[in-house]
């Protein structure tokens, strides 16, 4: 067969990427399209895991674990909690989308097509730089947080505190 050996064989990493991307895309589609709110949340969890897998492929292990810890452990749990608390809304006969559904769908698909057309045609780098020791990278992140990024880091801490207090105040039953 002519031309077959001219096709570049996918590497192991590329095969793994396609699998992870498949899971992420499936999760994202379930999140956006499934009518049942609880299934949306499960799809969201699948996406979070997929994104964590993407981080592992990008050799950002710390970020991958932080992603699972915060997104799956805290954010997805909170969302599920809210779904349970407002579960009266789930079994209504109204449709799960609003009036803007059609234009929004068209815009989203168009945006994706435009972005993809742009992204494919630009000559991006194919190979990343060599990384150092993964343990040293974690130490570097920690050090950067208290040196270069000290002010944003402290502001973030303050914001989390304010958000926490605000959330308690808002959700409290009086």
């Amino acid at each position, binding site marked *: 067969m002519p031309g077959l050996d001219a096709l570049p064989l996918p590497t192991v990493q590329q095969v793994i990427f396609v699998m992870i991307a498949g899971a992420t895309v499936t999760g*994202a589609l379930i999140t956006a399209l499934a009518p049942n709110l609880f299934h949306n949340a499960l799809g*969201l969890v699948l996406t979070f895991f997929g994104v964590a897998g993407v981080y592992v492929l990008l050799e950002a292990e710390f970020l991958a674990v932080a992603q699972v810890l915060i997104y799956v452990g805290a954010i997805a749990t909170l969302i599920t909690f809210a779904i349970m608390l407002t579960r009266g809304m789930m079994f209504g006969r109204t449709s799960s989308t609003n009036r803007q559904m059609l234009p929004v769908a068209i815009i989203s698909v168009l945006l994706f097509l435009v972005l993809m057309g742009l992204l494919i045609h630009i000559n991006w780098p194919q190979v990343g730089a060599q990384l150092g020791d993964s343990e040293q990278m974690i130490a570097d992140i920690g050090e950067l947080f208290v040196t270069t990024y000290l002010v944003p880091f402290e502001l973030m801490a303050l914001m989390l505190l304010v958000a926490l207090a605000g959330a308690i105040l808002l959700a409290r039953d009086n």
Partner: protein
Amino acid sequence: MVPLNWYLVLAAFVFCTGLYASLARRNAIAALMGIELMLNAVNINLVAFWRYGEHVERMEGQIFALFVIAIAAAEVAVGLALVISVYRSRRTVNLDELDLLQG
């Protein structure tokens, strides 16, 4: 290695589904989930650009992604608290029924 634009296309797809979910869904919690999807897409881009960039030792992409994660946590906490308090007073979390300000 995986070419950079594969990651970027994946992120673009997740972003667009998030956009759709946050604008077209009637339920407030579903819209919040759409915002989470968009934030995740941004994070994929940040980390991918960091990995394929020239200064990997500066860790900018990872640190920005961590900031985004923290902000997402705060956003979800406040957003869900709002949803729950709205549900308590109006017995609905459908965004198009919350039109008190519509005069």
